[in-house]
């Protein structure tokens, strides 16, 4: 049996692999969307935070012998705290200004973070071993799927769903959404908005950090791992439209899959396929697939 001219086994295989990649896009664009939502800041440092998350896991293992499962908890926490500090120290001063300044500031921050890690650890990259529990691979019949990758898909979808639920279906989420539009007024209703904002940035950062830890065993942990990814994630966000959380998750997963298939049909274009899709989507739906018209 063949689908689109490729054997159906390979097709399913590529689909699974696309999902793995999409899982990272989804988690990163989710964090971006959450931060953008409440702070009106396009967090350019998101890629750098993702990198810091991966490094944190690696350092924990390398220097203190902290295992993967603890790192999965501790590293995002650490990145989250870093995020809160950044928000309190820098971003706080930018509220009420043109959102472009937030973009530029976080761009500067990403350069600093990247530079410091590069200085400290070089660029050639560090290896992070797959945790023992998830070693090996499962034969799905149509492909051999390493267990770890299956776990990545599962974990990230679970995280995305939880985040979506919190934001769209809970009271806290309603505060967040309202705070996005008029934080001062929400505060005047009795909600501790400054705290909420710091924690939101922290949570967005932690999501990036978590994605970093999940990615560490799959790819090389290098200071540059975030800066290339972030641009693709931006495109994902533009395609999905920042309007909806679920939108960014679905778009992220979907584009991962599309990119995966491009690698089979026309690998030369796999780097730019996301950007091409972005251009097309913008032509047809300027607000993005899930965005609300302004």
């Amino acid at each position, binding site marked *: 049996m063949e689908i689109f001219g490729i054997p159906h086994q390979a097709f399913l295989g590529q689909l699974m692999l696309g999902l793995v990649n999409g899982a990272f896009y989804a988690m990163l664009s989710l964090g971006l969307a959450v931060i953008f939502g409440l702070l009106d800041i396009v967090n350019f440092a998101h890629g750098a935070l993702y990198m810091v998350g991966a490094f944190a896991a690696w350092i924990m293992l390398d220097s203190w012998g902290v295992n993967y499962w603890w790192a999965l908890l501790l590293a995002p926490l650490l990145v989250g705290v870093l995020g809160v500090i950044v928000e309190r120290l820098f971003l706080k001063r930018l509220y009420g200004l043109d959102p472009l300044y937030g973009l530029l500031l976080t761009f500067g921050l990403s350069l600093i973070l990247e530079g410091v890690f590069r200085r400290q650890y070089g*660029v*050639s990259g560090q290896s992070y071993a*797959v945790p023992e529990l998830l070693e090996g691979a499962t034969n799905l019949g149509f492909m051999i799927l390493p267990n770890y990758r299956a776990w990545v898909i599962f974990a990230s979808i679970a995280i995305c769903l939880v985040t979506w639920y919190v934001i769209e279906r809970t009271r806290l989420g309603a505060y967040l959404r309202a705070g996005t539009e008029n934080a001062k007024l929400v505060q005047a209703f009795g909600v501790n908005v400054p705290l909420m904002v710091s924690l939101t940035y922290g949570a967005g950062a932690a999501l990036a950090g978590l994605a970093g830890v999940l990615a560490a065993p799959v790819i090389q942990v290098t200071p540059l791992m975030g800066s290339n990814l972030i641009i693709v994630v931006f495109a994902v966000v533009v395609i999905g439209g920042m309007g909806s959380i679920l939108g960014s998750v679905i778009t992220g997963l979907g584009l991962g899959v599309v990119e995966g298939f491009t690698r089979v049909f026309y690998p030369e274009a796999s780097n730019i396929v996301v950007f091409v899709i972005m251009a097309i989507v913008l032509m047809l739906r300027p607000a993005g697939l899930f965005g609300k018209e302004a």
Partner: protein
Amino acid sequence: QNNAGPVRIGFITDMSSLYADIDGPAGAEMVKWAVQDFGGKVLNRPIEVLTADHQNKADVAASKAREWIDSQNLAMLIGGTSSGTNLAMAGVTKEKKRPFISIGAGSARLTNEDCSPYTIHYAYDTVALAKVGGSALVKAGAKKWYFLTADYAFGHSLEADATNVVKANGGTVVGSVKHPLNASDFSSFLLQAQGSKADILAMANAGGDFVNAMKAAKEFGITKQMKVAGLLVFINDVHSVGVKNAEGLQVADSWYWNQDDESRKFAKRFFDKFKRMPSSLQAADYSATMNYLKAVQKVGTTDADKVNGELRSMKYNDFYHKNATVRADGRMMHDMYLFQVKAAKDSNTPWDYYKLVAKVPGDQAFTTPAESKCTLLKK
């Protein structure tokens, strides 16, 4: 040119970016070590080392080179990593007529279509890597090849060069897949390779791409089905991948720290300072500086043309290479090696990664005069 004042040697490399580990600040230190070991003086003039970070930007490299030559009366320039910057520096030094030793550039253009009477290409080039990797493996029975190629100029030329070698030695290429630069995920490319039933998977990529591809290959069990060859792999990359993952990988290089006593001596000194072993480029940095100073000593002047002439006629003998010479096109002709990464259990000391598979003499490793477009060779 004046013959007073300090003798200035310039070293421009990537100190902070993609290739900083294989050369970078440690490479600069090697140049300084050579100067120190030489005695800090030549022809009774103090030797000064100028270093700069080109950040992988050709224009930074070129402007720095130009500025040093114009305002500091630079005697000789050493170019570190990255082809683009080295080609740019070669352009400047050709115009300004100064000896230029390119260490870490991969592109064979430096001694081929873009050759210059002032350039010496010191360590390796992609043609040599392809030839060394290719011919030895095909001879060892790996007939069916599949390429995983980085989709840009250097990847393409590596693949093309290797393909020629494979075919010339009676092998076949059953397929290839191109992956983008800095791809974060190689699994789907590898899935395609897996379906090819080739004997050998050749990775025509470098640095982070190679490392990620290698790790994924291990994860998906490809290393069990076929051999893997890295066409441009430095020891630092193997270190990154981890011996466990890289086991069995075939690698071509111009030098390995554990190849003989002299090398080990150099490596130990390096290790004491940097807590890692030197790459072939770092070794070449030292060697090139030392040999340049010897040439200056011999001709008794820093006059660019005279020193350049000596550099192109002398014999090179040190821990880095034996009986090597520079061809008219600027190509340093020396032995190249094919190594195999040891099994994890056989790797006894830190960074003890390779065992020697084959040694290929320079005239078989590099572009032959017949293949070359360099006019300097046709004279």
